[in-house]
C-alpha cells in the first residue's frame, strides 16, 4: 500500500498570520483577574470594610466566578482595595471614610474596568483597526484627474 503523499502547502506570508486584539468580537474575556481587600483589625477606619467583607464578599465571589478574591490583613494602615488586570496593570483605591454603599460602588468600578490607563475619551468615539470597506479615495483614479 502506497503511503499518502503530503498535500503541497500554498506559500503564505508570515506577517498575515498575526491577529489584532479585539476582545469581545468573537469571545469576551473579562479583564479583571484578582481583587484584594486589605483591612486593619484594630483601626476604626477599617470598620466599614470589615463589615463589607463579613456581609457581601461571599456573594460577590459567587456572582463573579472569573475573579480571584483575596482578603488580606494590612495592619496599622488605612483600608485599601486593589484590582489586578490582565494587562499587568493594577488599580488601587483607598477606602478611608467610605460607607458600605460607597465601598460597593468602588468594587463595582474595579470589576467593570478594563485596567487600561484613564485617558480622555470625548474625542475617540470609534477606534477601528479594520480597513475601510469602501476603500480610500485616490486622486489618480478619478474620472477627471486634476491637471496643473
Amino acid at each position: 500500500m502506497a503511503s499518502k503523499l503530503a498535500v503541497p502547502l500554498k506559500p503564505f506570508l508570515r506577517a498575515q498570520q498575526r491577529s489584532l486584539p479585539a476582545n469581545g468580537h468573537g469571545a469576551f474575556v473579562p479583564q479583571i483577574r484578582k481583587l484584594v481587600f486589605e483591612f486593619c483589625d484594630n483601626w476604626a477606619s477599617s470598620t466599614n470594610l470589615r463589615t463589607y467583607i463579613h456581609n457581601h464578599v461571599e456573594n460577590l465571589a459567587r456572582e463573579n466566578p472569573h475573579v480571584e478574591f483575596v482578603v488580606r490583613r494590612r495592619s496599622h494602615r488605612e483600608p485599601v482595595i486593589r484590582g489586578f488586570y490582565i494587562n499587568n496593570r493594577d488599580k488601587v483605591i483607598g477606602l478611608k471614610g467610605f460607607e458600605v454603599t460607597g465601598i460597593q460602588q468602588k468594587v463595582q468600578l474595579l470589576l467593570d474596568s478594563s485596567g487600561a490607563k484613564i485617558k480622555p475619551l470625548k474625542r475617540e468615539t470609534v477606534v477601528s483597526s479594520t480597513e475601510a470597506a469602501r476603500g480610500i479615495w485616490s486622486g489618480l483614479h478619478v474620472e477627471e484627474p486634476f491637471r496643473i
Partner: protein
Amino acid sequence: MASLLRPTLRAVATRALHTQTAAAPATTPSALSLIRSQPSHYVVASVAGRKYLLTPRDLLTVPRLKDVKVGDVLKLSDIHELGSREYTVRGSPTIPAEQVHVEATVVEHTKGRMEVIFKKKRRKGYERTVRHKQTYTRLRIGPIDIVENASS
C-alpha cells in the same frame, strides 16, 4: 497644452472598468446578496441616540449605559445603511432587523480623565472648583451578518 493630451489607453481602460454601471437590483434580497458577495462591509447604525459608521472589530465609546453589565451582548436595532466597496443599501429609515444582524459586546464601563472646571468672578469673592469624570461604556462591534434567505 497638457489638458489637450488624450489620456493613455491604460487610463481609459481603468476608468471604463471602474465606472461601468450595472442595472440596480430589483429586489432587496438580491441587493443584499450582492453586498454579501463582497469581502468587507460597513454599517451606519444608531446607538444611544447617535449615528455611527461601524465596521466589525471596532471599539465604540458611548455615554454610560446604566442598565447593562460588562460582557452583555447588545443587538443593534436601528441600522440605517449597509454597504460594501461598490454597493450600498439604505433603509427607509432603517433596514429591517430580520435582514441584517449586528451585535455589540459591552467591554467595559469606564470614566474619562478628570476635568477641573474653575469658575471665578473677579472682585466679587466668587470662586468655584468642580472636579468631574465623565462616565463611558465601550462596546466591541461583532461581525456583520447579512441574512441569506428568501424573505424580503
